[in-house]
């Protein structure tokens, strides 16, 4: 039980990597506040955790809304008596178009959720983590925060931003015993890649564009997040862990 007695928040916990990680955290003994804008998805994650004997609550929150993030942290702290782990994971994709064709509204929404959401999570969780004597923050970046891809302008920019925001927070809060790291997943079997899967021509290429020649599962990413959140990663901070099946090797 690597997270025994720890309290955690997982944003975007209603599906995909967030759900798998919330479940994995709970399996290792953590109490988990599952957050999402999708109520049904979030409640389902909580149900799965409780079914296995774990402890979890659902807190509906839009990570791009400062008041709701503040409330999320407060609710988790009140429910669990403290906070040790924050997984800033909520993220969205956008229309597969060139930046000349991407609407300003869509750009703003992607940056608000993927990047500002991480900022707000850090902003409101750090005081609670300090109060608990330290802890760990893990942010979800992406292989596309490192590598460029056509028609992914806002997504590329938002996820690259997460990597530097991670380094910045690692510097600012290291002395409070708060470690801050990012994961950079490659192509993982979640809702966000549904549009790619429908492209019969490109999907066979995209899904094999890494050394292992397959897409990853949310559970495989959850294991990496668990590792970074646990004491096993006690000397890792400011780092970005690529969990991409070798997507960066070529």
């Amino acid at each position, binding site marked *: 039980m690597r997270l025994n007695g720890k309290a955690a928040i997982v944003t975007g916990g209603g599906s995909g990597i967030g759900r798998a990680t919330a479940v994995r955290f709970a399996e290792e003994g953590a109490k988990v506040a599952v957050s999402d804008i999708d109520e049904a998805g979030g409640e389902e994650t909580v149900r799965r955790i409780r079914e296995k004997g774990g402890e979890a609550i659902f807190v509906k929150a839009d990570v791009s809304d400062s008041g709701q993030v503040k409330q999320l942290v407060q609710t988790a702290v009140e429910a669990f008596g403290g906070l040790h782990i924050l997984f800033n994971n909520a993220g969205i994709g956008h229309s597969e178009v060139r930046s000349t064709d991407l609407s300003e509204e869509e750009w703003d929404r992607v940056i608000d959720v993927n990047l500002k959401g991480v900022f707000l999570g850090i902003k409101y969780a750090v005081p609670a983590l300090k109060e608990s004597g330290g802890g760990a923050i893990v942010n979800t970046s992406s292989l596309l925060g490192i590598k460029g891809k056509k028609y992914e302008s806002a997504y590329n920019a938002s996820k690259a931003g997460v990597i530097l925001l991670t*380094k910045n927070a*690692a*510097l600012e809060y*290291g*002395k409070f*015993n708060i*470690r801050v790291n990012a994961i950079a997943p*490659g192509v993982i079997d979640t809702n966000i890649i549904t549009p790619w899967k429908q492209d019969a021509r490109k999907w066979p290429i995209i899904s094999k564009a890494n*050394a*292992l*020649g397959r897409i*990853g*599962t949310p559970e*495989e*990413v959850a*294991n*990496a997040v*668990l*590792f970074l959140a646990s004491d*096993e*990663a*006690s*000397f*890792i*901070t*400011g*780092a970005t*862990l*690529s*969990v*991409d*099946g*070798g997507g*960066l*090797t*070529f």
Partner: protein
Amino acid sequence: MRFSNAVAVVTGGDSGIGRATAIRLAQEGATVILVGRTAAKLETTAQTIERMEGAGKAEVFVADVTNREQVKGLADYVRRQHGDLHVLVNNAGISTHTKWLELTEQEWDDVQQVNMKSVFLVSQTLAPLMIEGAKRERANRAVVNVASLSGYQAGAHIPHYSAAKAGVISLTKSLALELAPYGIRVNSVSPGFVETPLTERGLQNERFVKAVERNTALRRVGAPEEIANVIAFLASAEASYMTGSDVLVDGGWLIT
């Protein structure tokens, strides 16, 4: 117990990160073959493992990892004794502190040999054993190379070491590509300032330690066990979707 029934080879298993890694893998059930040049030092690690309750086993194999014949001897030994190999940790490393204009060709060659050529020799010679195993049974198999923060950043008077470690990071990616078809993952770790025999002299200098602490986000140097934990993670099935990655374990030194 992530390494029950696993056979692991750790080079440079006599001290520092290698020793801590061997202990960590054995704690989780692995049979560890400690490889190094000095039998006595390897024996000390082996005895520590043997004394641990519920741990795996430890064996000692004396070999110079820069010598093809001796590495071949290691492969023959592992094949004969265990018939399989699941985890390979290429950890052996050395360095000297010498200014560029004073660096001798011999020093350059020695450092390239132990830090980089050993990865080539040991991985190439032991990989067939892992591949044969992979053809027999589906199991977690992984290589972890110990690179360094110095592979990213120039340090004080270690140009030969920095170049070799940058080579290890790159070689890791190539190996990841070549061994992926056999289900063998290859990753590296890049430790920052960690208390080991290699850094002992530098870390006796109080001013140097203060400077490291001041420039590290976590305000301290690391312990070998903190690197061993990362190597164990990368070697385990928990890292099943990781290959070709380098994990920086430097307490946040490289950020600035």
